[in-house]
Structure formats: C-alpha cells, structure tokens
C-alpha cells in the first residue's frame, strides 16, 4: 500500500488523541449512530436479507477460489470490447502505468471518481510528482483534498469534519484549486453543496482524462460498475476522452446476474438507500458515446498473498460498504486516522496487516484494535467473520508462522515486544493445567488480600488508570465448595472431579 502511512505509531497511541478530542468524538458519534440506525431500517425492509448475505458470500468465495480463470476471462472480454488491460503487481507498478497513460494523452490534469484502490496506491501523490494534478470530485474527497487531510472513512471520508470546519476549508482553499468559494459562504448544507458543484463543474467540463475505480467487474461481459450518490462519478466516467480504471483484482464477479445480489446489499449496507442514485456501467468503448480510450489497470498489491491464507482470505470478499465501520465502537472513538491506512475500522484492521504484512508497528497493532464484540460480523453483507480473522492475525503476530509474501512462502518470526505477555500466557497456561497451582495462587491472593493495591504495576497500569480493581475475596469458590460440598456436606469421590493432577481430592 501507499507509503503515506509509513512510520505511523501503533494503534493505541494513534487512537489516544482522537479519544480525547471532544469535537472529533462528537462528530464521529453523531455520524455513525445516524447511519447505523438508518442502515438497520433499510435492511429490515428486505425479507430475504439472510439469503442475500449468504448468496453474496458464496459468489465471492467461488470467484476468489477460481480468480485466475475469471481474471483471464475478464481480460478477454474487456479487450474484445475495445479496452486495454494492464496488470500491476504492486502500488509502484500501478502508479507507473497510470502516469504513463496520462502522459501519453499530453494532459496535465485529471478528474477522479472516488476510489479506494487509487488511495491505497497513493496515486494522486505519484501523479503530482510527474506534474499531473488529480482533482477529487466526490464531495467528501474534495473536502479531504482541499483540507490537506486524510480520509477517515471508506464511504464518508470527511466524516470527522463538521459543517463549520467544511465551510472554513472551502473558503480558504478552493481558490487555489480553481473556482473560489463565495466570500459570504455559510455552513448551510445547500450552500456548501452549491459551492462544491460550481467548483467541480468547471473541472468536469475541462478534463480530458478521468480516473476511477470500480465496485464490480463482470468477467463474462467485461463490464465495470461504479455506484455512487452524487452524480460526479457519472460525469467523470462519461465526459473525458480517456478513462483509466484502477481496480483490485478481487472486485471480479463471474456473471452479470451476480450483480443482482450486490446491487441490493451494497446500497442498503452503505448509505441505507434502497438503491444508490447512480449506477454507471461501462463495457470497453462505444462509438460516439463516452470515452474514446479505456484502460483497466488490474491491481494485485498483496491480494494474491492474502488469497493464499485460508482464514484471512475472506477479507477479500469485502465490497467496501463501510457498515462495519459504522457499528464499530472502537472506530467510533478512535476515528479513521488511527488505523494508519486508507482502510480504517474493522475491515482495515484485518485487510491492512494482510496486504502490507505485519512488520511495521502499526500493522502489528491493528489485529488488537478490537474488543471482538462481533458487531462488524453481524452487519457485514458478505458475512466476513472479522473477529475470527482478527484472532487469526493476532496469532500471526505473537506466534509467527507460515505466510505468503510477494508470492513466496516465508515463515514469520514472532513479533518483538510481546515478551512479557508471552511469558504471562505461558505462566497462566502452566498454572491452568495444574489446578493445585491455581488453587495455591488463589489462596495466596486471598490471604494477602488486604495488601493488594487498587492499581496495577507494569502493563496492567493502563487498566487501573481509569478503573478500580475488584477486591480479592476472602475465600475462592473452590475452597468454599470443598468446605461445604455445595451445601451437600457429603464429601465423596467423584469420577469427573478426580481427573487431573491436582491431588486435592
């Protein structure tokens, strides 16, 4: 993925600022709770939601299992329809291809449809280095771009901003990029939208090159699909002379018919709409309609490696609806930036450490950025068991093990920095296989209970900094049971109870 986030601190530190920023927390809380409630309503309207979810899961799993075949079919269909297919193994290669394609048109500016894939590879920055200006045309992306900010949500990248902040950004920055905002701009939604509309329209009408991603690619027909709600996408996909689409290979679906499922689940899960306002589909090029040249850049960038992992590969089913972000209590408080990637929230916590590996501090901390509450799994329209993958990736961090990186099998060493925890787990594991030891520990704790502080030393300190510890009881349960036999007062041998090496019977 993009180097923009390299050197990020681990999640807990990155989250701290957001947790204590009241405005940010208020913005996030308001936005996520609103969309959460709306989504629940939109989903409840569909009587066969469970079946749709299962169908989506199956289509995606089937496609991923035969991805090589479907990608070849896709290439054939796109080519037959007049498009050109390019394969990019990683971000650098994708950026080089796109830069070259733009340079070949002789243009120095492009309009963009909101796309996660181009953010993932840091395309705008790469283009800028080559002297090409990329204009984001999605309203929220525009806000982020003008504010020299980073997106913090998949669907609503400026979710962390409120209206007042947006007005200030428009007023201060629009002029440098094109048509300035009116000097008397207020923070009413209609005025903000109008300012953005006028600013963007100028760009749509001028641009000769459009760059997009895609929500789906149909192997059978070579059709690409973008769903959106502002209409800016439709403009970028139809007005320019050249269209370049950068799409992750996992976005493939086998047949046109498969769209039936996702065009129902995606809008309801993401914007809580029954259907998204704009669904644009394009198949290669068509005479006298739309772009004259169409390029599809198929992006791997860690996806094939992810595919090799039996548990983790389900992350590639993701259709980027962002429902998991909106229900995640951790995301709600930590904000999107803390995840150190263009993929924040629960999906980011399992996707980034797979696409990028777990070597960096931020990537190694992401699998722990969850309380495993399961809300993300419950809402996911393609049933990605995010908690399962999180636990699986935690194992990768603390125990190491075999993974595929850049197509090669490698055996990861356990991550550093877990020594104390590993020792504690080993000690606990040792005690827990010896009830006698556990009991002795309990007794010691009970006997010294008046000496116990209500705060903890070492790694536990963070816990007791904001919570009081429970008092240790005078007698652990098992001692009480032994003393009273559960009120039966008839001590005697019992088969199951005598298992183990405690020798306490």
């Amino acid at each position: 993925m993009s180097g923009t986030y390299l050197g990020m601190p681990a999640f807990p530190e990155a989250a701290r600022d957001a947790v204590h920023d009241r405005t940010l927390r208020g913005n996030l809380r308001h936005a996520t709770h609103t969309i959460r409630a709306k989504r629940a309503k939109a989903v409840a309207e569909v009587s066969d939601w469970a079946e749709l979810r299962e169908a989506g899961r199956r289509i995606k799993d089937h496609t991923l299992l035969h991805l090589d075949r479907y990608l070849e079919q896709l290439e054939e269909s796109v080519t037959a329809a007049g498009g050109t297919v390019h394969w990019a193994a990683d971000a650098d290669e994708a950026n080089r291809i796109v830069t070259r394609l733009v340079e070949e048109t002789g243009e120095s500016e492009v309009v963009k449809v909101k796309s996660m894939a181009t953010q993932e590879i840091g395309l705008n920055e790469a283009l800028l280095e080559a002297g090409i200006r990329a204009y984001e045309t999605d309203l929220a992306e525009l806000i982020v771009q003008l504010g020299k900010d980073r997106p913090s949500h998949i669907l609503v990248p400026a979710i962390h901003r409120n209206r007042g902040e947006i007005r200030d950004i428009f007023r201060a920055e629009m002029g440098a990029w094109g048509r300035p905002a009116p000097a008397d701009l207020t923070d009413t939604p209609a005025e903000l939208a109008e300012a953005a509309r006028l600013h963007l329209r100028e760009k749509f009408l001028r641009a000769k090159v459009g760059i997009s991603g895609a929500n789906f690619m149909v192997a059978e027909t070579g059709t690409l699909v973008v769903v959106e709600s502002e209409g800016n996408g439709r403009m970028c996909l139809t007005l320019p002379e050249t269209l370049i689409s950068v799409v992750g290979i996992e976005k493939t679906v086998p047949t046109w018919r498969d769209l039936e499922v996702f065009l129902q689940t995606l809008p309801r899960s993401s914007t809580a709409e029954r259907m998204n306002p704009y669904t644009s589909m394009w198949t290669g090029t068509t005479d006298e309609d739309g772009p004259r040249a169409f390029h599809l850049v198929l992006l791997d960038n860690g996806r094939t490696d992810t595919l090799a992992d039996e548990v983790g590969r389900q992350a590639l089913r993701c259709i980027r609806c962002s429902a998991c972000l909106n229900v995640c209590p951790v995301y709600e408080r930590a904000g999107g930036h803390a995840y150190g990637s263009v993929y924040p929230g629960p999906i980011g916590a399992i996707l980034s450490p797979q696409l990028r590996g777990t070597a960096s501090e931020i990537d190694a901390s992401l699998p722990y950025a969850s309380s495993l509450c399961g809300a993300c799994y419950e809402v996911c329209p393609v049933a990605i068991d995010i908690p399962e993958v999180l636990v699986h990736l935690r194992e990768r961090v603390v125990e190491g093990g075999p993974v595929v990186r850049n197509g090669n099998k490698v055996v990861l060493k356990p991550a550093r920095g877990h020594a104390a925890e590993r020792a504690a787990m080993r000690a606990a594991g040792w005690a827990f296989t010896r009830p006698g030891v556990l009991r002795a520990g309990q007794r010691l704790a009970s006997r010294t209970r008046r000496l116990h502080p209500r705060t903890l030393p070492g790694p536990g300190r963070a816990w007791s900094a904001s919570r009081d510890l429970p008092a240790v009881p005078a007698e652990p349960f098992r001692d009480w049971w032994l003393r009273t036999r559960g009120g039966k007062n008839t001590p005697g041998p019992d088969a199951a109870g005598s298992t183990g090496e405690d020798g306490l019977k």
Partner: protein
Amino acid sequence: MRVALFLTCVNDTLYPDTGRAVVRLLTRLGVDVDFPMAQTCCGQAHYNTGYRHRTEPLARRFSDVFGAYDAIVTPSGSCAAMVREGYPRMGERARAEGRGDALSAVLAPVVPRTYELTEFLVDVLGVTDVGAYYPHRVTYHPTCHGLRALGLGDRPRRLLDAVKGLELAELPGAEECCGFGGTFAVKNPDVSAAMGADKVRNAESTGAEVLCAADNSCLTHLGGTMTRLRTGMRPVHIAEILASTEEEPAL
C-alpha cells in the same frame, strides 16, 4: 442428568459469590450440580490474544474434566462461547495444519453440552420464573458474546422480568460493547475506558441502582468504571439476582 458447574477461572478466584449463587439457584430448581475440582480455565484469554497453540492443552483438559457430564453450565457468556465457537474452530485449524481430526474428536463431546446459565435455565430446564425476589431497579447489559456469539436473545430479560419486586429499566445503547474485551482493555486502554464510561453513563441515565450482566469480566470493567466515576450504581451478576429469594434476599 449429570450437571457440572464450570465456574471459570475469573469467577472462581474473584467472584465466589456468583458461584455460590449458581449452586443455590440450581439446587433450588432441583438440579444436582457438581463442581469438578480439576477444572481451571477454558483458554479464552489465550485464544483471543493469539496463543492458539497454548490454548489447546487447556481445551483438551476442559474436555477431559467435563466430557462425562450431560450438561456443563457456566455463568459466563464469553466462556460458553469459547467452548461452543472456539473449540470447533481450533479443531478445524488443527486439521488444516495436517494434524487430522484428533483434536476435534477430543473436544467434540463438550461443545454442544456447554450452556451459559440463562440458556440452561430457559432451554434445558424450561423455566423463566425461578422464584426469585429482588426488590431493586435493575438495568441489563447484554454482553457481546452472549448477545452475538451465543444468541441468548431475550432469555436473560425473560428471567429478569419474572423476578418479583424487580423493576427492569431499559438500557440505552444496550447492544454496544462495554469495552472490556479481555486483553483489549489492557492493550487499548484509552478506547476501552471511553467505551466503559459511555456504557456506565447510559446505565446511570436509567436511574437503576443495579447494572446486571451475565459475565463478571464485563462487570469488573464496568464496576471499576462506576466507582471511578462515582456513580451510585453497583454491578451484580444475574445469577445473584436469580438466586435471591424473600427468605434469603441478596443485597
């Protein structure tokens, strides 16, 4: 029916009252409950932190200790979920690692027989009115593992609804995680504390004296937050409410 109480390591060590309440409650309902002394821990903390290989001996041991019982009852939704969801998954992973079906076979007997307390009462014993008396205003926090992993649904609420004298107050945002999450509370202290504080404030807004849940781990986190935030509330495990009677009322 041979019923074993799996109290969990946390309850055994820190919350013996919950264990005594379960014994009292089940005995009152005519269940002959046993406490196998060789029990220790289901391995949830190990497993969820990524130490799957260290969890395996604990899981085997659990099966060893409890395998002969018809039902294993535990007053902890997350430990029940560990056995019911985690154990089969560990078996699958062992198979994927080329170790065959041995682990699955060892763990299989305990998986379908492990019940969370409220589930056991409602589904196995078929009771919702357990003859309890608890004259307090109570709000109920459905913990994540009980809610989503086990799908306890309204079982705990139905049990509480039938308690004499108890006034049940609706908890706003009930389904949101309290922020405990095992080692999450230690690894992400700021986010965890913020989640706990929000949960406690929601609970406080109901005017309840008691915050009730079916998992002492979440209650530890919330109880610790309550005293820190100086609320007048106290955390109480649902077992203690259900065990409370007019003759022997719990506090």
